[in-house]
């Protein structure tokens, strides 16, 4: 059990330092979602950016694939206590979308809207980070359907439910608006290094 919590005996000291409190390391990529895996038709798929922006966006999959791209090598942490080290995600850096949308000065928060009504929320300063992507690729391959194909938000400094699968839009707001899990007791801030799992502690 202690080995599991510390990340197992095979980890180097450097790796162990990368495991947040209460997490264990897995080499698997567990699948955790509610409901069904949505079926997506890329011919009709679109992505919207709206709310407190001067330039609302709607782009198709073809247009998305023409955006600049970025690779991020980092660790990911799930609220269910698994951590996966040294992952490689690739996609469009969020700053490209923010620049295109031209956020208004009162935009402070974002809600990610996904298939099946799933939402999650973030402060803008958490979203606007160097390692945040609209990710379509994991380990050099397109995301698998159960991991969010065709597109997921990727916010590795927060527990992974904030990296919303099957994302279809970003809504920028002046006020915070709780997402799906956040409404029902998950932490709003979700920082794995502070072990912010649930809002009631």
């Amino acid at each position, binding site marked *: 059990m202690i080995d599991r919590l510390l990340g197992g005996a095979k980890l180097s000291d450097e790796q162990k330092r990368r495991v947040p409190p209460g997490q264990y390391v897995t080499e698997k990529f567990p699948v*955790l979602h509610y409901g069904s895996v949505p079926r997506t038709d890329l011919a009709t798929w679109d992505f919207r950016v709206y709310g407190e922006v001067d330039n609302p966006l709607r782009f198709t999959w073809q247009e998305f694939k023409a955006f600049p791209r970025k690779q991020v090598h980092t660790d990911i942490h799930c609220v269910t206590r698994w951590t996966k080290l040294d992952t490689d995600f690739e996609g469009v850096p969020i700053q490209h979308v923010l620049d295109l949308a031209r956020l208004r000065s009162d935009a402070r928060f974002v809600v990610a809207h996904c298939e099946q009504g799933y939402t999650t929320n973030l402060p803008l300063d958490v979203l606007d980070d160097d390692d945040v992507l609209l990710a379509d690729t994991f380990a050099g391959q397109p995301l698998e359907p159960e991991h969010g194909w065709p597109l997921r938000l990727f916010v590795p400094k927060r527990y992974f439910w904030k990296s919303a699968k099957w994302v279809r839009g970003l809504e920028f707001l002046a006020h915070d608006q709780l997402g799906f899990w956040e409404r029902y007791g998950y932490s709003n801030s979700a920082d794995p290094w502070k072990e912010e799992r649930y809002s009631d502690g």
Partner: protein
Amino acid sequence: MSSTGEAADTARVEVRAIMARKGHAVELARQVEDRLDEAFASGALVRTPFLAQALDDLDAALDLEAGQKLGGKSAEASRFILRAIDGALDEA
């Protein structure tokens, strides 16, 4: 303003009795949905904005396409949403 009277009290008691039963969270959630729909239809309880949101979220959590299994988080979502519904029931 929350609903009052015998029908409202009965509906709340019955919804909470379903929540308190032993059983799989997904199945209990479906029973709660059915009982609440009945209470709303009869006017015993009012569908407050919070309950409307919670029931929409529950629908999403329990949505199952043909040929698929429910995701592993459906049961947890059901438990969390039922707890929130319990807390909001007195306002309905």
